[in-house]
C-alpha cells in the first residue's frame, strides 16, 4: 500500500492499516541501527528542516539522527537562539526557512494546531514533532512499535496512562493509536490533571475510564505509560511533589498489583524518584531505552515514506544492509 497523506500531522485520521504499515516499514530500519555502518543513501542530496520552536533534546536529536542515517542534510532551528525573540511570526519563519529549499519540514511548537497551520502554507511534507497539547505522532508510533515488539500485538490490551494527562500530547496520540486496535484505557492521576472529559477522546466507543487511585489503575494493566511530572507548569497552580509521590509514584510495591509481564513505558525525560523509582525505571519490565532506539527507526521510516514513498522491491534499508555486508566481505578478502 502507499501512505495517502503528504504530511504526518496527527495519528487521529490514520487507519489501523496505515499505522500497521508504518510499523512494518520501521522494521528494516531497526536492523540498520544494529549495523556497524549505519548509513544509507536513500535521502542523499535531500535537506530536512528541523524547526523546533519549543525546546526538545530527545526528539530533535532523534529526527536529526534519522535524517543523517538516511543520507540527508539537516537545517537546525532552535527556539532560544532564533529571531523568534525579535518577534518574527511563525508563518514568516516557516516561509523564510522554506525559501532555503528544504525537502521536508519537521516542526515542534507550543500551540496546538501549529503544524497543521504551517502545512497549509507549504508545498513540502510537514512532520508534526509535537504541537501544544494536541498530538505527538512519532512518539505514538514508536510507543506502538515497542509494545508490538514486546507483546507480539497491539490488539485488545489494557493500557494505563499515569500522570498529567490533561496537558499531554503523548497521551492523546497513544489513545488515538491504540484505540484503533481495540485497547481499553485507564487514565489515572490527580483530579485536576485527569478531567472526566477525557473519557470521550479516541475512536468512538473506545473504553476509557478515569480513576484517581493508582492501585485501581494498575490492576490488570498490560501496558503502563508513565508521564513526566512537570513540577512547574505555566498558567497552573503547582501540585505538591510530596503529594504526587505519596499518591501516584510508580514503585516496586505498587507494581506487585500489575500483571507480572506488564510493560512500562515513559516518553522521557524521567524524573527519578518523582513519578517513578529507579528500580522500576531500570527493571526488566521497563522498555524506556528501547523506546528511544525505536524512535530513530520510526523517524527514519517517516522521513523515507514522506520523501520517497514505499515502492515494490527491496526496502532501501535492507538494500543498504546488503551493500554494507558486500563491502565488508570485499575488505575481508583483500
Amino acid at each position: 500500500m502507499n501512505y495517502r497523506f503528504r504530511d504526518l500531522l496527527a495519528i487521529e485520521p490514520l487507519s489501523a492499516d496505515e499505522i500497521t504499515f508504518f510499523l512494518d516499514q520501521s522494521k528494516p530500519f531497526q536492523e540498520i541501527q544494529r549495523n556497524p555502518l549505519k548509513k544509507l543513501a536513500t535521502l542523499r542530496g535531500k535537506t530536512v528542516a528541523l524547526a523546533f520552536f519549543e525546546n526538545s533534546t530527545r526528539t530533535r536529536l532523534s529526527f536529526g539522527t534519522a535524517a543523517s542515517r538516511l543520507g540527508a542534510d539537516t537545517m537546525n532551528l532552535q527556539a532560544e537562539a532564533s529571531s523568534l525573540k525579535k518577534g518574527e511570526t511563525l508563518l514568516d519563519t516557516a516561509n523564510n526557512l522554506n525559501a532555503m529549499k528544504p525537502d521536508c519540514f519537521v516542526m515542534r511548537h507550543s500551540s496546538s494546531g501549529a503544524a497543521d497551520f504551517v502545512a497549509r502554507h507549504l508545498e513540502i511534507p510537514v512532520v508534526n514533532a509535537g504541537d501544544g497539547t494536541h498530538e505527538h505522532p512519532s512518539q505514538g508510533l514508536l510507543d506502538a512499535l515497542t509494545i508490538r515488539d514486546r507483546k507480539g500485538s497491539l490488539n485488545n490490551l489494557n493500557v494505563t496512562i499515569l500522570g498529567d494527562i490533561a496537558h499531554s500530547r503523548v497521551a492523546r496520540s497513544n489513545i488515538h493509536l491504540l484505540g484503533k486496535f481495540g485497547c481499553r484505557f485507564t487514565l489515572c492521576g490527580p483530579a485536576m490533571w485527569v478531567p472526566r472529559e477525557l473519557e470521550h477522546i479516541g475512536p468512538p466507543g473506545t473504553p476509557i475510564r478515569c480513576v484517581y487511585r493508582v492501585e485501581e489503575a494498575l490492576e490488570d494493566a498490560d501496558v503502563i505509560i508513565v508521564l513526566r511530572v512537570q513540577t512547574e507548569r505555566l498558567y497552573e497552580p503547582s501540585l505538591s511533589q510530596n503529594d504526587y509521590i505519596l499518591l501516584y509514584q510508580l514503585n516496586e510495591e505498587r507494581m506487585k498489583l500489575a500483571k507480572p509481564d506488564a510493560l512500562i513505558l515513559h516518553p522521557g525525560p524521567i524524573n527519578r524518584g518523582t513519578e517513578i523509582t529507579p528500580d522500576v525505571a531500570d527493571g526488566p519490565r521497563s522498555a524506556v531505552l528501547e523506546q528511544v532506539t525505536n524512535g530513530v527507526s520510526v523517524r527514519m521510516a517517516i522521513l523515507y515514506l514522506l520523501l520517497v514513498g514505499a515502492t515494490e522491491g527491496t526496502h532501501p534499508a535492507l538494500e543498504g544492509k546488503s551493500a554494507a555486508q558486500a563491502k565488508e566481505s570485499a575488505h575481508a578478502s583483500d
Partner: protein
Amino acid sequence: MLLIKNGRVLDPASKTDAPRDILLDGERIAEIAPAGKIAHANGAQTFDASGLIVAPGFIDMHTHLREPGQENSETIETGSHAAARGGFTAICSMPNTRPVNDNASITRFIVDRAKAFGHVRVWPIGAASVGSKGEAISEIAAMRDAGIVAVSDDGKPIATAKLARQIMDYCRSLDLLVIEHAEDVSLAAGAVMREGVAPAAAEPRLMRGEVL
C-alpha cells in the same frame, strides 16, 4: 460506671426529646431508659441531671486554637478547655496558625499536642494553598494521612476561582471537605458590618461563583 438520671435527653439523630436516664460504662453508653428504669445500675456513681439537658457533644467546625505561633492568645489546651465547658466534645481548628498548617509536620504537631494537652477531640483543618497564599496547592494528601478532616484558606477566601476549582476537584478525590471563608476582600475592604437591613454583597458574590 456513671448513671446520669432525671435529665431531659435531646438527641436529634434518634429524634429523642424526653426524660431519660443514661448509664455510662467507661467510654461507652451502656443503657438508655425512661427515668428510673435502668436495670443494672448497681455500684454506679450517680449524677442528678434534674432540670438539665443531656445531649450528645456538640462539634464546632470552625475554631482558632492559635497554636503553633500565637500562644499568647490561645492554646490547644485553653481552647479545648473552653470548648469542654460549653459542651463541645470535638472541635475543628483552622490552619491560620504561625506557621500556617500547610504540611504534614505541622498537622502532626497539632495532633500530638492535642493528644497530650487537649480536653476534647481536636480535628485539624489543613490549608488549601501553601501559606494560604493562593499560589501553590499544599500537600493535602500528606496532611490527610496526618489527620486533617477538611481544607481551608481561612482568614481569607481561596485566592482565585481557578485554584478553588482545582482544590475542590482534588479534595473530592481524596474525600476531604473544603471550607470556604466567603468574603470578597475587595468589597469588604476592612469593614465589619453593613449599614442597613439586607445582607452584604461580599459573601453572596463569592458563594455564587464557587457553587457554580
